[in-house]
């Protein structure tokens, strides 16, 4: 994850309290989704950014996960994400996100 974005995530977690934060991802691939999710829960796996060795354990979801889709207005979701549902491998993204959450999410 971009170093500036890591810094912002860390600052917002301090400012609002990690329990009040939800990180939403839009990565195209499951591997990239997993890396971003790992960064905001277990720390930066590339050991480059401000979240290196910082276990925020934030709640993190991908926009294509069914529990998120269920909360969003259906028309807006279709307009913004509908086409990408046909493009992304949603099953593998969901599996990756569930794995990271069950292992590292604290909230």
């Amino acid at each position, binding site marked *: 994850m971009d170093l500036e974005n890591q810094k912002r995530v860390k600052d917002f977690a301090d400012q609002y309290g990690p329990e009040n934060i939800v990180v939403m991802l839009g*990565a195209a691939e499951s591997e990239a989704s997993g890396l971003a999710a790992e960064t905001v829960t277990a720390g930066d796996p590339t050991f480059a950014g401000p979240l290196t060795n910082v276990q925020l354990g934030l709640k993190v979801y991908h*926009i294509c996960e069914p529990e998120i889709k269920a909360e969003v207005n259906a028309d807006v979701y279709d307009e913004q994400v509908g086409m990408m549902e046909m493009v992304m491998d949603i099953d593998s993204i969901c599996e990756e996100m569930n794995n990271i959450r069950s292992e590292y999410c604290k909230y």
Partner: protein
Amino acid sequence: MSILNGKKVIIIGDRDGVPGPAIEECVKTAGADVVYSATECFV
């Protein structure tokens, strides 16, 4: 229990996946308070 309603949401979109502003449009309808929205570019 709702995941997004009333929560402070940080968005990390992907230019070649779902970009930040598109995610923002979605989560706002679920009552989320978007505090940061960025889009990453891997290429």
